[in-house]
């Protein structure tokens, strides 16, 4: 094999795929931009507030003791104070996500954002003793007709709250507490509704504490148990205990990365092979290079495409993990294994794609032959849950040794919380290497025969004949 020719083919293959605007934008820029935009969107979402609701809340208080507390709790100043507090907490979290923002700039924009906060302004009006709930509802209804001309915003009825007589003290000992019901004007902001309901609940609870002679602060303290980070004790020492992200997200992301990188390269390989064949450029190429050189070059070229994708996504992933202060989840050995298993998986799928591409006349015909390949590709998804629940079960172990899905299953097992012994990983790599050689050998035969065959697309039986024939 003439390696300089192979590399020439590979260079063209890579350039014609990866050096196009479509690829750079679609496969590289877009995801990177998305990753960069997420924190910005979070900040923007916090800054962009809907106009605050202003208006009246009627309280029909049958218990006759909650209304003053509600009035305190939903006082415009108190509401605003709580909103600023919440905003500052959220902003702190966001700042951790955006490492680039300087502290001063952050401080300034924070002050500005705080002064911009528009919290709802409520006017709490206790409904008199004799008031009927229906009358209040009627008043709200009447406002719809003349809404446009409602001169005083404060008079706009936002909500009607009816509190049960037994909401704060039990009337019969064997029954529970009563509750409240809220009636709202349609299309209020979620925040306004939350504020009103929250305020009412807080107030009812407050009165219950008082009636039961309990100290609210004390109870809050009793409830509070701040959890320290759990650790796992291993032979080497201590480490952070597995949490949801570590058990599911990491193996899933590793598998998806692998699948995506090998599929993208494979898909492009199929397209360019079909293109060269239907363009009839293939015979010109075959007068300069052998079919094996051509196939090798193309596979290497698309490997470059897959590797660049994998590198970019890995880098984005690592940056994201560091930004979310989860950098300790990054395992260099793991990253190395992702690349190793990528190469193994890619070579097997690329062989299949090259064979399919050479066998058919156009992409439409490729679809029927692609069905078995697609089935292989969704296997890792299907097996994700069973494998991740029991990474070392007999089922998972056996699956992780069967090419061509072995790389995907093995990477899930390796990145799970219960990693397989090293010998199994090495054995899987060995088996896959044998698989790669076998797949390439078969593909080379189909490739050679198929490239110059035009006409009826072959079925599986013809393909087997080609392998025997070549």
């Amino acid at each position: 094999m003439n390696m300089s020719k192979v590399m020439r083919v590979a260079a063209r293959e890579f350039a014609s795929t990866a050096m196009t605007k479509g690829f750079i934008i679609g496969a590289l820029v877009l995801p990177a931009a998305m990753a960069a935009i997420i924190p910005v969107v979070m900040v923007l979402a916090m800054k962009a507030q809907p106009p605050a609701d202003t208006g009246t809340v009627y309280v029909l208080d049958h218990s006759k003791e909650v209304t003053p507390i509600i009035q305190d709790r939903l006082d415009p100043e108190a509401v605003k104070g709580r909103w600023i507090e919440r905003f500052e907490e959220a902003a702190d979290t966001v700042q951790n996500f955006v490492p680039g923002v300087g502290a001063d700039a952050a401080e300034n924009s924070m002050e500005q954002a705080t002064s911009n906060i528009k919290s709802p302004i409520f006017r709490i009006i206790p409904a008199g003793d004799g008031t009927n709930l229906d009358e209040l509802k009627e008043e709200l209804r009447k406002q719809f007709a003349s809404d446009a001309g409602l001169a005083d915003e404060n008079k706009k009825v936002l909500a009607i709250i009816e509190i049960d007589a037994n909401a704060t003290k039990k009337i019969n000992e064997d029954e529970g507490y009563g509750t409240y019901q809220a009636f709202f004007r349609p299309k209020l902001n979620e925040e306004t509704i939350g504020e009103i309901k929250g305020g009412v609940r807080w107030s009812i609870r407050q009165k219950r504490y008082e009636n039961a002679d309990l100290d609210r602060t004390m109870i809050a303290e009793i409830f509070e148990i701040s959890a320290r980070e759990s650790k796992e004790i291993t032979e080497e020492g201590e480490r952070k205990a597995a949490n949801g992200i570590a058990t599911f997200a990491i193996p899933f992301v590793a598998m998806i990365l692998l699948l995506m990188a090998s599929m993208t390269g494979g898909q492009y390989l199929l397209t360019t092979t079909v293109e060269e064949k239907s363009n009839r450029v293939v015979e010109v190429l075959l007068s300069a290079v052998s079919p094996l050189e051509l196939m090798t070059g193309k596979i290497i070229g698309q490997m470059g495409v897959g590797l660049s994708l994998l590198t970019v996504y890995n880098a984005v992933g690592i940056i994201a993990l560091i930004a979310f202060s989860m950098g300790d989840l990054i395992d260099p050995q793991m990253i190395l294994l992702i690349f190793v298993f990528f190469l193994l998986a890619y070579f097997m799928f690329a062989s299949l794609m090259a064979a399919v591409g050479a066998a058919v006349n156009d992409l439409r015909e490729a679809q029927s032959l692609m069905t078995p390949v697609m089935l292989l590709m969704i296997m890792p998804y299907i097996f994700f849950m069973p494998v991740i629940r029991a990474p070392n079960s007999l089922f998972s172990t056996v699956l992780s040794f069967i090419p061509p899905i072995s790389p995907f299953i093995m990477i899930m097992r390796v990145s799970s919380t219960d990693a397989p012994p090293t010998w199994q990983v090495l054995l899987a790599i060995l088996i896959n290497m044998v698989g790669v050689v076998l797949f390439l050998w078969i593909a080379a035969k189909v490739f050679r025969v198929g490239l110059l065959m035009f006409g009826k697309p072959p079925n599986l039986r013809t393909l087997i004949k080609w392998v025997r024939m070549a």
Partner: protein
Amino acid sequence: MPNAVSMEGVRKTFGRKVAVEGIDLAIPEGSIYGFIGPNGAGKTTTIRMIMSILFPDRGDLAVLGKKSAVESKDRIGYLPEERGIYKKMKVGAFLKHIGRLKGLDSRGLGNTVMEWLDRVELADVHKKKCEELSKGMQQKVQFIASVLHDPDLIILDEPFSGLDPVNMRLLRSLIDEQHTNGKTVIFSTHVMYQAEQLCDHIVMIHEGKKVLDDTLDDIRTRFDPRALHVDPIGGLGMSNEIAQVAGVSHVTPVEGALEVILSEGVEPQDAMKALLSAHPMNRIEIKKPTLEDVFIEIVTDGVRGADAEQLRADLLAGSKLEEEGES
């Protein structure tokens, strides 16, 4: 002189269909050979075997002194019948890519490409995408791709199909120039007069078998049709009278003249004298055999008249004559 290409007893089958059956060939270096025959005769299969794109089931093959073209691919230029280009690639880049694949050094390659484009009057297109070119332009680009690396052996499969007369002449002069420079040229065509214009040696292939392998001159002598073309002053209606002249076997009208077939043993010179003395003529000449005639002659094995005409039409249309004599 050593042979550029030699084949011995080469056979190739596709499934049950025999594409090439026992072909022997010896093409000396520096010659210009024409492979002729109707569509589907086995020309392309033979060429692909010479190029080691296909491999013979049986028989021996040597190209430029090597066992197969694989070992001397860079010394061979090949223009396949099915022409391909990368549609999205720029013309210059495409030619450079092929040049690199053919083992050319990247230094100076740009200049070589430009010189060639200039020679085929396409200097201004090297920055255009291949798909923007007309079909004839694409074909010229593909021809450049086959000779860019200055090969010793040039194989052109149907190089003239789809070209207008001006470009056909341009291409013919380019091929001729390669021949003059001592390169071996093999080309195939189903349009036989193109072979007559260029080749000094003809290989005729019919249904996978070699039916003729000779120089053009020898073929002309061997396949002397023993016929004259005459255009009597009295008009073509004179055919009955002319048929009465001594030495004339029979007369058939052809385009703008009468074809006079001579009886056995009659010398054309004598018949001409007899005809001229019998009737005044606008024109009288000895008919030269065309390759078409030779081909029909070989295939039909001497069948004449309407049958031969039917055969000629069938063969030129590329269709195979299934049942002889029934037409």
